[in-house]
């Protein structure tokens, strides 16, 4: 962004000051045409090389071009050649670099993550913009000539390479496999045709084409008005030699070109600072609250308002205000715009983006420039300005209207993707897209799929997770139905979804509330999974603690209850000394599980610890393996640092189960020695043991959990790269089923569900063909 700010400011200032403001449209046209040429050229290359390679190449070629331009200028003094090479570098290589970086960033996030991540990534653009502005102003103060400022551009561009290399080094993402059809080579025209076809088939995209067109028409018109206003202001101040002019002159700017560069650079600092604040404090909040399409509407609405002001009161102030508001809101718009691409299936995303960014965007610039040229030809002076301002108002209004109409169409894309068969990754992304704000009936759409018998448990879990995030009370009864699901993970996901509902104790949901309590009690009684039981209690606590206490005490007092041990454990989670009254009697229970859970529940109260230590010592004496297992678990639960040597000894024992329990207990003691053994257990060939280890990671202290995840990622990455090296291939279709199953396991352990889904689909298709 530093490079872009310096580069575009230099190009504009050089052109305007050397041949006049009237030729600015020529710059826009040349830029737009070169962007189209670049898009065709890079579109072809994108099918032959990876995005990362193309990013590196465009940076290197762009930087070489810039350096050549400077060398040419100093050697031959040819200004036109210098300008031409800069324009080619900016419009072909750096414009494409921008698109490639967009696609590269898009691959790093999921739709929901993008709502938070993109605004933050956009801030880097503004920080770069401010730094670029400061570089221009600072360079002029140091008496740099305009041509010398191009070196800043070269330096900024060259920094992209180490930044990406560093990023790749620390990136926590496993390599992915490719599906053959994605590698199908298309010519650039065929690719644009394909993009056009996809757009025609998708009403949202048809709307988006016009929106992008209008956005860049607006940009061009507003940029012209703004540059003209700044130029006029500088000319005016030169004539009257006011204080600002002197200050600029003192700071080293002498010619009109340098004054204009200085003026534009200074205003860039102001705009980008405003935009940066907007991005930091408002953007992700706005996207989270209003959703993608409503957020997109904010930008044209703001532009409509500022354009009206420009129409009613034209001048330097209103032009700067309009440009400032445009820049501030375009960051929010851009973040939402990029997020909206997740709604499309991955394989068409690249084509559509190239079509919109490589063709429609420059077409928007051409339309804007066309309006400027026609206006200039038929109108003059104030009339011309008035016509441009009127065009701005009309374009902003049209853009707002189109986006208003496009909300429903946006919802239709994930809705259609949900109808895809199998575990298509697009279905998973669609669930996340429906979790975004702004959709009218997303809960209904998801509920319908939740009970589709053809859907996999993995898919249903993802839906339940999303219903939890939506926290729509109308989804409660559907979630409760999943309590009867045969799959334990689905039941757990259903209970977890309910933990997100915080408004159920309101009067308006009194009956739903009662029903939830009844179902939770029923599930708690029937359920064998301790994890589900523990989650049920968390929901109880969210809903109304009295209800939970009443239920737990009743179970404790029931001598026939099979869930007493769990109830005791759960009671301990309340942290209330009052529980001792109910639990103390169980310290004498003949059942070691009940006794151990009573120790865990009461350990938090100091007055009981000496007595509990005696009971613990008894358990430690036991030779029965089951009691040993319970005891090791207890040591972890009570954070028994005084038993560290015992746990370290157990970590060396032969028995896998005891060793895993010791590692988990040590992890709860936040002892880093536990991390490597835990990773080994997650990767263990005994799937039951591995599943238990993996499940327990979530309950570990944050620091240990992060370390385990980091080591696990490293190990999985090693394993996956090893497999890919052996297969010599990344195309799913060319990899044997056995290897695919092993790769699937790696993705499963890395929680990369989209890749798991992709492999499931591929494996199912292969089996079908075979």
């Amino acid at each position, binding site marked *: 962004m530093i490079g872009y700010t310096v580069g575009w400011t230099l190009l504009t200032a050089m052109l305007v000051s050397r041949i006049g403001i009237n030729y600015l449209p020529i710059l826009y046209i040349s830029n737009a045409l070169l962007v189209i040429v670049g898009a065709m050229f890079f579109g072809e290359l994108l099918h032959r090389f990876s995005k990362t390679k193309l990013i590196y190449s465009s940076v290197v070629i762009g930087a070489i071009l810039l350096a050549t331009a400077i060398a040419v200028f100093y050697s031959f003094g040819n200004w036109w050649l210098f300008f031409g090479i800069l324009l080619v570098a900016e419009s072909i290589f750096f414009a494409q670099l921008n698109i490639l970086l967009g696609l590269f960033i898009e691959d790093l996030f999921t739709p929901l993550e993008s709502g938070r991540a993109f605004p933050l990534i956009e801030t880097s653009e503004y920080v770069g913009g401010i730094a670029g502005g400061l570089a221009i102003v600072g360079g002029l103060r140091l008496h740099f000539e305009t041509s010398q400022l191009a070196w800043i551009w070269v330096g900024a561009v060259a920094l992209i390479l180490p930044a990406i290399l560093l990023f790749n080094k620390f990136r926590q993402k496993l390599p992915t496999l490719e599906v053959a059809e994605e590698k199908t080579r298309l010519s650039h025209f065929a690719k644009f045709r394909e993009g056009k076809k996809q757009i025609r088939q998708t009403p949202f995209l048809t709307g988006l084409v016009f929106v992008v067109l209008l956005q860049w028409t607006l940009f061009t018109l507003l940029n012209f008005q703004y540059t003209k206003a700044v130029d006029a202001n500088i000319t005016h101040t030169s004539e009257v030699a006011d204080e600002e002019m002197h200050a600029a002159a003192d700071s080293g700017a002498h010619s009109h070109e340098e004054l204009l560069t200085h003026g534009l650079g200074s205003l860039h600092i102001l705009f980008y600072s405003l935009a940066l604040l907007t991005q930091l404090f408002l953007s992700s909040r706005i996207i989270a609250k209003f959703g993608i399409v409503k957020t997109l509407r904010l930008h044209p609405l703001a532009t409509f308002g500022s354009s009206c002001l420009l129409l009613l009161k034209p001048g330097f102030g209103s032009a700067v205000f309009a440009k400032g508001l445009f820049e501030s809101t375009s960051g929010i718009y851009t973040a939402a715009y990029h997020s909206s691409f997740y709604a499309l299936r991955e394989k068409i995303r690249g084509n559509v983006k190239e079509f919109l960014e490589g063709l429609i965007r420059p077409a928007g610039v051409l339309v804007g420039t066309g309006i400027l040229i026609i206006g200039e030809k038929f109108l003059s002076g104030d009339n011309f300005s008035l016509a441009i301002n009127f065009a701005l108002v009309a374009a902003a209004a049209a853009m707002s209207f189109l986006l208003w109409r496009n909300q429903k169409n946006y919802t239709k894309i994930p809705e259609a993707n949900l109808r895809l068969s199998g575990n298509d990754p697009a279905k998973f992304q669609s669930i996340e897209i429906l979790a975004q704000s702004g959709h009218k009936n997303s809960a209904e759409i998801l509920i319908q799929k939740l009970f589709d018998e053809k859907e996999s448990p993995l898919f249903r879990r993802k839906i339940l997770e999303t219903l939890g995030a939506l926290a729509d009370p109308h989804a409660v009864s559907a979630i409760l139905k999943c309590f009867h699901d045969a799959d334990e993970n689905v039941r757990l996901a259903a209970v977890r979804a309910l933990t997100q509902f915080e408004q159920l104790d309101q009067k308006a949901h009194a009956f739903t509330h009662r029903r939830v309590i009844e179902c939770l009690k029923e599930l708690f009684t029937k359920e064998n999974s301790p994890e589900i039981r523990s989650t049920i209690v968390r929901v109880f606590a969210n809903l109304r603690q009295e209800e939970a206490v009443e239920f737990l005490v009743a179970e404790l007092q029931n001598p026939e209850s099979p869930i007493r041990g769990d109830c005791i454990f759960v009671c301990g989670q309340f942290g209330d000394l009052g529980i001792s009254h109910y639990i103390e009697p169980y310290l004498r229970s003949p059942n070691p599980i009940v006794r151990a859970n009573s120790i865990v529940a009461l350990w938090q109260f100091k007055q009981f610890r000496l007595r509990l230590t005696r009971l613990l010592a008894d358990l430690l*004496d036991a030779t029965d393996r089951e009691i040993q297992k319970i005891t090791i678990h207890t040591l972890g639960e009570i954070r028994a640092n*005084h038993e560290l040597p015992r746990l370290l000894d157990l970590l060396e024992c032969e028995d896998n189960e005891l060793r895993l329990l010791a590692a988990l207990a040590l992890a709860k003691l936040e002892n880093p020695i536990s991390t490597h053994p835990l990773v080994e257990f997650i990767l263990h060939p005994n799937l039951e043991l591995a599943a238990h280890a993996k499940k327990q990671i979530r309950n570990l202290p944050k620091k240990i959990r992060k370390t385990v995840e980091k080591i696990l990622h490293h190990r999985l990455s090693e394993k996956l790269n090893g497999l890919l090296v052996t297969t010599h291939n990344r195309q799913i279709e060319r990899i044997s089923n056995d290897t695919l199953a092993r790769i699937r396991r790696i993705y499963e352990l890395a929680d990369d569900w989209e890749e798991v889904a992709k492999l499931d689909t591929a494996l199912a298709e292969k089996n079908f063909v075979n």
Partner: protein
Amino acid sequence: MPTQNKNYLVVPLPDNFDENSFAKFSSELDELLASEHIYFVFDLGEIDILSSKLVCHFENIYNRLVAVEKKMAFLNAKKEVCEILEFIGLSVAVFDEEKKIEEAIERDEI
């Protein structure tokens, strides 16, 4: 060998002492506990950590001493051991220097 002093008896723990060697030590203790001393000070010098079982053993001795109106204290307990004693709630006086024991006995602080 225990060091006999005017008012108290300092009992060193055997080399490589741990919870498994406590049974043997305990039987040797019976003789010592029968002596006329009121204060029994266990020198924990070599012990790095007090496991649950060790805590129970010491608590057991403590209770035996209390039953015959005698008192117990620890000497040279490491920081980690003191923390465990505090955490578990075994309220036994701990001294880092032997000379302080006499003063504490005089002030009836054990």
